[in-house]
């Protein structure tokens, strides 16, 4: 720690230097003047208010996810597992403003894979550090400052890699994990996001209201691939591994549900009818999912577990995500109600196949995501010309399937490469001995619950 005392000294220096650079850079910012200029579109304070709120709600999902995953881990791994979500806030939080946003919503590159369609990835040097949109309004959503949109989208970019973590929880090294999500976010999330939302070649075709394809399917498959490559936790499945704190899991699920309102309703990038419809179907699907899961458990085991209930909530929420704004209540109820048994089966199958997708990221996010993305076509509020099984409908069905397949293959393949790469270089799998001792102590030098010891 000798280097510490010097820090303060370095500061003034650093500050001045950095201050000057930033200012310098600021100068040549072409759009900066706009910030002041009244020329630009008027702001709709209402829509802005809701988008700000949504952004906050989605941020709330990160601690929510941390609790959800953390509570399911074993006592010795609770902090390590929660860290997986929190560190995503730190890493992606930084990369997103630096270049992530530019890669997702910048001018589309490599266009022309399909005539008249966009390309594979976005880019705009001016968008680095969100400089170009620092003062602009209405580019990405009517009446809202572009920064709000950037922040809202940023939360999605943060939560997606955090979701993956559940698949290889309790057996991954922290350093490797950090490198992994950093790369994953740039190499997988950004392209997918651009392709489907940001002007890429599927934008406008595949319906993905709030990220079933971009977020849940990609995270699900990534988790599966990583879990398979890393292999099972030490002692799995021989020794039973108990959730260390189910109350935490329930709270986490509650926060996720709450945040999901921002997630789905916010994706309308408005504060009106679509927003209301998205929120309604989200609520309906979540409730239906929960109900149908506990019913299944009640039938099969004559018991309804709390973990089952919240798994049902999640299944419902994931299934409705791509559909939120586009299906009415009945559709939402059905999608939610059917997603639960589907995920239930997936989880049971996992058990039979014997691989260790620790917290069922694929079993829930992957499966429900795929189901939602394709199932939504059956319940569209505005059925394409010709109705169910009409031509237009079939095209739509194909678009959906295409989106799913592309997301599955692209995310699957690249994830595999990444996992191998990171494991060989930085090391991803945690040694058996460290697994025994627990991540909290070996990786973070902490213990989650001081309270269960005397001091």
């Amino acid at each position: 720690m000798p280097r510490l005392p010097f820090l303060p000294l370095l500061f003034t220096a650093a500050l001045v230097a950095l201050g000057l650079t930033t200012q310098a850079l600021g100068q040549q910012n072409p759009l900066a003047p706009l910030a002041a200029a009244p020329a630009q579109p008027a702001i709709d304070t209402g829509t802005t208010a809701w988008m700000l709120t949504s952004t906050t709600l989605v941020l709330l999902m990160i601690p929510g996810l941390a609790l959800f995953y953390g509570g399911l881990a074993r006592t010795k791994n609770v902090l390590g597992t929660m860290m997986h979500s929190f560190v995503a806030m730190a890493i992606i939080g930084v990369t997103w403003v630096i270049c992530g946003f530019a890669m997702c919503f910048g001018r589309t590159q490599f266009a022309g894979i399909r005539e008249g369609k966009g390309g594979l990835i976005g880019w705009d040097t001016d968008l680095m550090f969100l400089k170009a949109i620092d003062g602009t309004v209405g580019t990405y959503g009517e009446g809202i400052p572009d920064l709000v949109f950037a922040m809202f989208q940023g939360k999605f970019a943060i939560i997606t890699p955090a979701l993956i973590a559940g698949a290889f929880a309790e057996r991954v090294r922290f350093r490797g994990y950090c490198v992994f999500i950093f790369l994953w976010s740039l190499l997988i999330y950004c392209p997918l996001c651009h392709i489907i939302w940001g002007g890429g070649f599927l934008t406008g075709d595949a319906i993905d209201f709030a990220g079933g394809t971009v977020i849940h399917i990609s995270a699900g498959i990534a988790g599966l691939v990583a879990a398979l490559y890393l292999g099972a936790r030490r002692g799995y499945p021989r020794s039973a591994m108990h959730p260390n704190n189910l109350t935490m899991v329930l709270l986490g699920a509650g926060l996720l549900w709450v945040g999901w309102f921002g997630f789905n309703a916010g994706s309308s990038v408005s504060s009106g009818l679509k927003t209301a419809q998205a929120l309604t179907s989200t609520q309906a699907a979540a409730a239906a999912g929960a109900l149908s899961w506990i019913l299944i458990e009640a039938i099969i085991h004559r018991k309804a577990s709390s973990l089952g209930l919240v798994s049902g909530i999640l299944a419902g929420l994931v299934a409705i995500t791509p559909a939120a704004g586009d299906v009415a209540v009945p559709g939402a109820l059905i999608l939610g109600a059917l997603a639960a048994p589907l995920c239930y089966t997936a989880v049971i199958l996992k058990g039979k196949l014997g691989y260790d997708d620790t917290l069922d990221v694929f079993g829930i996010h992957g499966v429900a995501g795929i189901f939602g993305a394709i199932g939504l076509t059956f319940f569209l509020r505005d059925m394409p010309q010709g109705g169910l099984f009409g031509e237009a409908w079939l095209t739509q069905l194909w678009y959906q399937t295409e989106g799913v397949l592309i997301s599955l293959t692209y995310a699957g393949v690249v994830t595999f490469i990444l996992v191998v790469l990171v494991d060989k270089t930085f090391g991803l799998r945690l040694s058996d001995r460290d697994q025994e001792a627990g991540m909290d102590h070996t990786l973070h030098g902490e213990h989650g619950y001081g309270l269960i010891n005397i001091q």
Partner: protein
Amino acid sequence: MKLIVAIIQPDKLDEVRQALIDANIGRVTVSRCTGHGRTQDIDLYRGQEVTPNLVPKVRLEIAVNDSFVENTVKTIVNAAQHLDPTTSKGERGDGKIIVLPIEDIIRISTGEHGNSAV
């Protein structure tokens, strides 16, 4: 003096303590433990049935004078059994009682020791 260590099912704790008090054995030390015997206790995990390797139990420690031992043990056995009406026996997992010899007991508050301190 003997130290009676009883490992019982958590759900019987109240009954056992009541029974002991009625047999005026007031002083006891209780602690959580998890045990492995023949007990079965199945949990659900996302629709799968899981059999934990260790089952929660409660551990009682009672220091008594020799004359009390038999009575104490009987009291515990009766109170701790999940009596099965058909066979007038308890269930598996009802637990164990272990009796250990004590060399001396000291009451901290007064420092006195031996039988009077129990």
